[in-house]
């Protein structure tokens, strides 16, 4: 088990009703972590429409979880 901080933005934050939370997880990778949190919060967006970042840099869904890291799920962007 590792403890990580998860950040939510835009529609994911609305669905989770929090901007961030501390999560204890034994997920094999970032993709599995998203799926478990999707089950808990009912996120509408499937994984193939998101990107993921760890500690402020884009990461891969197949990356493992590191103790104490900050993980952000990035919904499709709409700036400009």
């Amino acid at each position, binding site marked *: 088990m590792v403890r990580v901080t998860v950040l939510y933005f*835009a529609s994911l934050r609305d669905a989770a009703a929090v901007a961030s939370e501390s999560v204890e997880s034994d997920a094999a990778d970032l993709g599995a972590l998203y799926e478990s949190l999707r089950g808990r919060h009912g996120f509408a967006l499937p994984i193939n*429409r998101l990107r993921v970042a760890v500690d402020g840099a884009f990461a891969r869904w197949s990356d493992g979880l590191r103790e104490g890291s900050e993980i952000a799920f990035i919904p*499709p*962007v*709409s*700036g*400009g």
Partner: protein
Amino acid sequence: MKRFNLSDKPFGIVPLRDALLDAHAGAFASFEGWVRDHNDGRAVNGLRYEAYAALAEAEGERVLDEALEKFEIVDARCIHRIGDLAIGDLAVWVGVSAAHRDAAFAACRYIIDEVKGRAPIWKHERYAEGEAGWLHPEN
């Protein structure tokens, strides 16, 4: 030096343009994105931008670095608003200086397209009929 910035307040464009003045530059191109009163057939009253600030600034800076590599330009800047905006407000500003106009136009286009496509910034629109929602475009 930081070339990309997020701003939670309205900003003036004259100082931004002045910062790009350069004896080597014969051309300046800029792009302004404004908040419009409609989207996808719905009337819009206003909007809010939210960003993952650390990553948006890093990615925005990367886009500007790329523009400086790809095009024969002297310098470039981009500022994107976050927070609540009203119809007509300036949402994003891009400015590019170059020796010649072709590179200035091309780099300006590249910067706005890439920032829109990559920087983690999200638009929350308030519709005239009372609903509101996040935009998560398909592409």
